[in-house]
């Protein structure tokens, strides 16, 4: 049987079946079309300007390594005029980051880029290993995700850089879209697809140049370019709910390869259908740039592999429980309001300011209220947040209360008494 020729150059032997569309390509043509597509994404969205300093969120994993390699290649080939820097976060997970950070250090040499490593301990006073000691393995992804999101921005700020690029790929975006549908989270649905998050009000912009790149193609690219990357799953994410959306995406891809891209497309279209009162942003603006909030959207350098995020299986069960309580409250409410007016003065529990006379028609869907999100900054740390106190500070407060420990930076915590309590906790820890 004659070997199949590459569908593009028609000269070399086809060695690769493109996961995205099953096109048969030779190695060179695959590499060049992969790069051309990223270039297309960058230019068609005007992602960068000449002279920009860009921090690449680097975890040592395949996505960020490919991102760094492709950006270096394109920056030289098309003369973008970018100043590229690697930025890594050390969550403080023994055996996980040790090796991947070594990879990043080698990448820095290979790509001739400066590298900055920021540790959770210096930013928050807690390593992830310490966090897990306190709260256990369940739900710690919440902490990791929230902390990492800020860590990249804070690290970038330290370097005087206002644009961070991350290695999120099409599979990640598709997964997030399905997850936000499952969670019923319209605000996040509205912003999870935009290539750039953060606007003029924020110090640091984030973007995802690989947003249309299939994970499988990223792996192929890394393999055929013989890139030096590190493969490991985060030790602390055994049972994430995101995993369920992820396996769904993988199955969809098997049934119809275009499905990942199609989900991303659907997500972009749906973002325009989310009512303005939910997003708090006007339509014309939301298409390209949307608010980023510091409340734990899946962001970061992709450090948690396939199952990053705040969504443990326990959280899915928690949500189920909460929804059931809401439903029960709503059904009680309807029971009351449909009774005779003699009982109309009885207000159902859990529903403040509800008028039983209008309740019957006004709340047909028993749905939760649409919550508007507005961007401000955290009262404690000044970091951009849609809440009064940002998620990281809220989490830290809980951590510090539960198990005080010694080495906390004073810029996170403020008053003396809590420092004292922390010291005492540290003493107790040492004694035990």
């Amino acid at each position: 049987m004659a070997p199949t020729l590459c569908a593009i150059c028609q000269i070399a032997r086809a060695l690769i079946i493109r996961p995205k569309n099953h096109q048969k390509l030779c190695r060179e043509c695959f590499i060049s079309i992969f790069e051309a597509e990223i270039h297309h994404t960058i230019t068609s969205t005007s992602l960068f300007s000449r002279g920009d300093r860009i921090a690449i969120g680097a975890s040592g994993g395949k996505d960020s390594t490919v991102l760094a390699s492709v950006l270096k290649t394109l920056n030289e080939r098309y003369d973008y005029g970018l100043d590229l820097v690697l930025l890594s976060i050390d969550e403080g997970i023994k055996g996980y980051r040790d090796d991947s950070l070594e990879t990043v250090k080698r990448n820095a040499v290979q790509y001739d880029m400066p590298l900055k490593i920021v540790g959770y301990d210096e930013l928050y006073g807690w390593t992830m290993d310490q966090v897990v000691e306190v709260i256990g393995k369940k739900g710690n992804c919440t902490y990791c995700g929230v902390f990492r999101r800020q860590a990249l921005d804070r690290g970038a700020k330290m370097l005087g850089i206002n644009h961070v690029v991350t290695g999120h790929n099409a599979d990640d975006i598709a997964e997030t879209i399905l997850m936000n549908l499952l969670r019923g989270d319209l605000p996040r649905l509205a912003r999870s697809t935009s290539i750039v998050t953060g606007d003029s009000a924020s110090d640091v912009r984030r973007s995802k140049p690989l947003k249309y790149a299939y994970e499988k193609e990223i792996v192929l690219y890394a393999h055929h370019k013989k890139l030096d990357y590190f493969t490991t799953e985060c030790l602390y994410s055994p049972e994430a709910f995101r995993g369920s959306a992820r396996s769904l995406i993988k199955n969809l891809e098997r049934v119809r390869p275009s499905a990942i891209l199609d989900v991303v497309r659907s997500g972009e279209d749906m973002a325009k259908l989310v009512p303005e009162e939910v997003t708090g942003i006007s339509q014309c603006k939301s298409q390209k740039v949307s608010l980023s909030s510091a409340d734990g959207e899946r962001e970061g350098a992709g450090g948690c592999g396939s199952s990053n995020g705040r969504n443990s299986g326990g959280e899915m069960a928690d949500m189920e429980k909460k929804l059931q309580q809401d439903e029960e409250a709503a059904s009680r409410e309807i029971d009351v309001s449909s009774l005779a007016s003699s009982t109309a003065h009885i207000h159902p529990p859990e529903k403040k300011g509800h008028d039983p006379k209008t309740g019957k028609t006004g709340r047909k869907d028993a749905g939760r209220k649409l919550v508007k999100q507005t961007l401000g900054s955290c009262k404690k740390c000044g970091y951009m947040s849609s809440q009064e106190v940002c998620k990281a500070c809220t989490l830290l407060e809980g951590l510090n209360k539960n198990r005080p420990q010694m080495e906390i930076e004073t810029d996170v915590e403020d008053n003396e008494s809590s420092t004292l309590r922390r010291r005492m906790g540290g003493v107790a820890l040492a004694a035990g």
Partner: protein
Amino acid sequence: MSGDIEGQQNGNTALCQRCHEEAATHQIRSDGICTKCFVAYVTTKAIKRMETYKIRGTTKTARRLLFPLSFGPSSASLLHILDQHIQGQYLRMNRASYELVVVHINLYVDPVDRKDADLLLEKYKSRFPRHTYSTLNLEDALTLEGIDWKALKMEEPLNTQNPADKLQALLGSMSSATSRSDIVSTLLTRLLVDVAKKSECESILFGDSTSRLAEKTLTETAKGRGFSLPWQVSDGALSYGIAFNYPLRDLLKKEIQTFSSLTTPPLTDLVINPKSSSHISASSKTTTIDDLMAQYFETVEENFPSIVANVVRTTSKLKSLPDEDTTSCGLCGLPVAKGTDGIYGWGGDQNTSSQPTEEKLHHGILCYGCSRSINS
């Protein structure tokens, strides 16, 4: 709660937490309830959604509603519920606020299947004789006007000699099982809308449960039809000038399945139960995205029923785009925003040279989802 305590004291038989009289045999959320209360619960949920069509003022003429009957548990249950509802209206006021025009569409071309369908429909007629019944075949959609047949590489639809063969050939030419099922459901919807218009119905009552609507939300998303969700999932949304209603939208698939066996007499011999989706494998060539989602939600519904319902509630909050600047898709007919048609020329299509000549030759507007099914 005294009912609980008594139930526990009496041994295994807990009392219904609603009526506190009968033994609890079923479960609604965390409550154990009796058969009677379960049937009442399902019926009430459906009838509540029919409030739009309740009797108002002195209007004498009943509103005509198209009722597509698939013989599945949902449409059978809904027909049973609405039949009783109409009967109740007659008993109380000697008139009904609406009447049902029942139609069954044959999706299979095999004559044996069609004969079975005819026999089953006869059973429905004798059980619910109040309504008008008719049967159509999916290939009847091939005679519809207003569909861009050229996009499907078909000649003009009218005067087709052998429509069933044409349909077979059309579906056979699709590149994947998903594209095939996508085109089938599009043709089905268009045919139903056409029937609704011809029989002067103002809306179509679909039997979709909340589980089915959640499935549909994710299925359409996965097919690149996210833009169309406001029309596909919201209650009362107008497509093509006809309202789409889903009276069973507040009930789980499981609840409806149970209900269909509890009516008096049971609907069991009228219902064709769909095969369980648990055996579906993603590596099979015949597996569709629809199958995968059905399977997925079967497991989610098992453990997290409220999350299923929440998906539908959330999706219903999406707003359709304003009418201006839209063109109807040549296939599914849904409004496509200007400049967003086809699978080429958006951010995710990163290669300007990837546009095949076919797309250029064909100038009709197709939405992303239809374009995907035809082109891949």
